[in-house]
């Protein structure tokens, strides 16, 4: 059963097609990897799904409902969550408060409920003994806070945009476990990554984007041997 389906999804910026006639399906409760060389349009794709950009052409269906023209905050409330590549914690709010924002508005909880939920999520992600100012947190902690923030909106479909970037080997393993934990709670996950090890270990299926188009689809083992994919990443043989 498809939780998210895109039909011919296209997004133009001027003359450039950042997302080019993409037909993609997210099956319920799967972990789908989205890979592709830099500039392939992965983050733009997420932005279009999340509602930051409206599609120029094509449609998006979430649980059967056409959300192509729906405003971003309404998509969030329907259950689409995402993290951001360049993490920007909200200044002026504490760690818990940052997470609370998701619960307050993504889910409409009261302040007390949101605070409790934020504490639960921080514990779930291993963030509970942090009393420092958010400006003093490590990269890993901030990334976890990002994820907690997204989880606070109780998404049914969660996009993780390069969460592994900048993590060392141990931290990456920790993050992989975390993603598995989140998945076990029933969340469908779309994960954009450059670190292939993560894709190999976590995903059921992989979609490869290049120049905004889907050039390959399937389990990682197949896709990683596809000549088109190799060309996209490494370039043509001389």
């Amino acid at each position, binding site marked *: 059963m498809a939780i998210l389906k895109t039909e011919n999804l296209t997004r133009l910026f001027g003359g450039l097609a950042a997302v080019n006639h993409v037909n993609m399906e997210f099956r319920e409760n799967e972990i789908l990897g989205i890979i592709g060389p830099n500039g392939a349009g992965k983050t733009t794709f997420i932005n279009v799904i*999340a*509602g*930051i950009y409206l599609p120029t052409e094509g449609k998006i269906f979430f649980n059967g409902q056409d959300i192509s023209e729906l*405003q*971003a*905050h*309404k998509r*969030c*409330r329907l259950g689409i*969550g*995402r993290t*951001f590549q360049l993490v*920007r914690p*909200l*200044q*002026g*709010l504490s760690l818990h*408060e940052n997470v*609370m*924002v*998701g619960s*307050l*508005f*993504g*889910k*409409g909880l009261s*302040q007390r409920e949101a605070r409790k939920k934020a504490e639960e999520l921080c514990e779930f992600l291993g963030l509970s003994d942090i009393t*420092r*100012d958010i400006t003093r947190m490590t990269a890993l902690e901030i990334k976890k806070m990002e994820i907690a*923030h*997204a989880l606070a*909106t109780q998404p049914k479909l969660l996009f993780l945009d390069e969460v592994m970037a900048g993590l060392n080997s141990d931290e990456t393993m920790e993050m992989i476990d975390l993603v598995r934990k989140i998945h076990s709670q029933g969340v469908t996950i779309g994960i954009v990554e450059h670190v292939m090890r993560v894709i190999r270990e976590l995903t059921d299926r992989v979609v490869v984007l290049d120049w905004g188009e889907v050039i390959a689809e399937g389990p990682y083992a197949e896709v990683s041997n596809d000549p088109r994919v190799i060309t996209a990443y490494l370039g043509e043989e001389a």
Partner: protein
Amino acid sequence: MRNLRYLLYIAILIVLLTLPIYTGVYLLNVMDMILIYLALALSWDMLVRSGQISFGMAGLFGVGGYAAALLHLNAGVNPIFSIVLGGLAAGVLAWLIGMAVLQLRGMYFAIVTLALAEIFRLIVRNLPDLTGGPEGTVLPSSIFAGNSTKTYWLVLTVAAVSVMASEIFRRTRIHFALTSIRNDEIVAKSSGIDVFKYLVFIFVITSAIQGIAGGAYAHIYGFVSPEGSFSVDFTLLPIAMALLGGMHSTWGPVVGALLLGVASEFLKLKIPYGHLLVYGLIIVITILFFPQGIVGTIGQKLKKTHTA
């Protein structure tokens, strides 16, 4: 600790309420102006918390003043009720403008607000039959027949309303929404916040407060005029106060209003024509050297000593 704070607040409130008992008319009049500016400074700050700046306070202040004065004069509306209606008029106007313009933010919105004061002033100026034209309109009498104690309590109420509004904005989820929007609208949107709706809401509420302040001012001085009611004073001074005291807080604008309010009394005596210059300088110097304002800078210093 918390009990001590509540006691302090109650003490301050009592002092403020009973001020007329032991101070003279002059001081009460000074307090009147300070409190009106305080309301304006707070309302400006509340909008700033969302990341938007308004340079149009004088416009909404004047609209409220004219609405209150004209309703009282031409429709016989009770003065206090007319002040409330003045606030309503300003709020409705803000709603219309906000709905039309708030998809654009930052400098576009700021410039539109800058234009607002001028537009309203010119409209009022050019409709002499309705508004008395360039000379303005005089009200038959000041509110409460000029009784300075009752006038003071009126203004105190207006200021109290703005303080309450500011605190509500700090303690409810509105605080979270504003801070998120101010930091990063895209993140805010992705968290489920309807950014546009919140911005219009804030703009309407703060404009309504400005309208109420304008209505009170009109009734206290018994006079509205294009130059007087839409004077740049009502934009410049509150901004200087909020900046000096410290943005993004309730105490900041309050401290700024008290400091600058008292200072401006002195300035008016010493340099009768230079006081606006001083406010401009304060804005420039504050932005350059301590954008956090007094309360903000003290707050930061305290934080540093705690986490050392």
